[in-house]
């Protein structure tokens, strides 16, 4: 049966409105729950960079562990602590959106630093965790790099990605790849920043302190990870050097 154009237009409009209302309604109702999940996932990743949390099932336990072991600060590219944003609102490291900051110029970004503190002495930092963001092969990749208190050795790493190829680039989230970074150094002997990069190919050969084995079939994802690491470590460099000289506590009292 052929129907008039008016009927078709009215039908489509009504359908669109009904479906639109349904979708936006669901989105509004589920948003708080989803935000909670994202926050929990973020903290899991930060924790995962420094310790094995795969045995902890209870989300509350993870959150309380995070509260206990982490103190976080936000810095700018010069390594100075940022306490208030341009509008004068206090800045919270966990709330800083790395993806949004990735899109603005390096000088204007906010850089959160998550400090993993000693269990007995909360003023002693055992590791610094630097979040980073970059481009993989298909879409964004992100990472949390944990550096030991010597500010040179990698303690652990956690990656995430949106749609890297399963079985190839998506392997960056596997323990196998993450373990390769452990113990590697980001500064060379003369003290200049070289980062740690994946080589092309996966031969399993022993490599120096600044290189790790690549991922077979995922060279482009590997390149993305390498440039993300180098880019962000450059941005954190001033902070790292200041901290090495013990300058952070001074900045904090300012």
């Amino acid at each position, binding site marked *: 049966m052929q129907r008039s154009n008016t009927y078709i237009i009215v*039908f489509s409009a009504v359908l669109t409105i009904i479906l639109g209302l349904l979708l936006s309604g669901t989105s509004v109702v589920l948003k708080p729950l989803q935000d909670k999940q994202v926050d929990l996932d973020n903290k899991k990743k930060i924790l995962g960079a420094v310790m094995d949390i795969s045995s902890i099932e209870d989300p509350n336990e993870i959150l309380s562990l995070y509260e206990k072991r982490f103190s976080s600060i936000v810095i700018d590219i010069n390594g100075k602590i940022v306490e208030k944003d341009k509008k004068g609102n206090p800045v919270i490291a966990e709330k800083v959106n790395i993806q949004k900051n990735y899109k603005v110029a390096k000088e204007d970004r906010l850089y959160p630093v998550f400090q993993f503190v000693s269990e007995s002495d909360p003023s002693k930092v055992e590791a610094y965790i630097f979040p980073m963001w970059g481009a993989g092969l298909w879409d964004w990749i992100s990472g949390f790099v944990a550096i030991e208190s010597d500010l040179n050795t990698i303690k652990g790493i956690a990656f995430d990605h949106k*749609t890297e190829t*399963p079985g190839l680039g998506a392997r960056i989230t596997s323990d196998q790849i993450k373990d390769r970074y452990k113990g590697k150094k980001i500064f060379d002997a003369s003290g200049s920043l070289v980062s740690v990069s994946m080589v092309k190919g996966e031969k399993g050969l022993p490599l120096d302190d600044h290189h790790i084995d690549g991922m077979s079939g995922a060279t482009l994802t590997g390149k993305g990870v390498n440039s993300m690491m180098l880019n962000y470590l450059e941005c954190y460099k001033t902070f790292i050097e200041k901290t090495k000289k013990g300058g952070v506590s001074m900045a904090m009292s300012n």
Partner: protein
Amino acid sequence: MSTETLEQTIVKEPAEPLLSKRRKKFITDPLNEDNPVTVQVLGICSALAITIKMEPTLVMSIAVVFVIVFANLIISLIRDLIPGRVRIIVQLAIVATLVTLVSEVLKAYMFDMYKVLGAFVGLIITNCIVMGRLEAFAMANKPYDSILDGLGSGFGYAWIILTVAFFRELFGSGSIFDFKVFEAIGWTSYQTNGLMVDSIGAFMVLGILIWVQRTKTGYVEH
């Protein structure tokens, strides 16, 4: 009481039983002889992509069954209102809405699953099985029959991908639902098969499945 039934039978034809022979076929046909994956060869993309492990596969199956059943029901209910010239767009809009709902609910309640399945839940929209059933069945049949048809096709898809996932997880990761099978029976030296984790493994398992099934049913491609 007896007169009442008598009267009814005279006035109108007896209602078809809820699960008559004809209706049973809606469910049983897609499970075997008219299986959407192995016979019609639809929905292969997701069958390859998400069958590395049982758990995400199960979630995906439930999502697909949900989407097919409700899309079939909704389209069947409004089938007389849908203008023929825009029917594909209408079907697509309904499927897309249902899929987005599933995706949002996963994100809120099963975030880890949401991360694993990610794009593939969204890709249910383009799963030919869903659109195929809407166009071929729900547009021309009553709501109840359409629900049965949806269940049939959904389960037909589900059991195939679950079987594929069973073998892929067993040989590829040495586990079932993340339970280490080989370690449990004392075979700790089992070397996991990397091929099974790749999509190639899915092709092979699926191919063998199709072979076995066609040998049994005697189905030949025309």
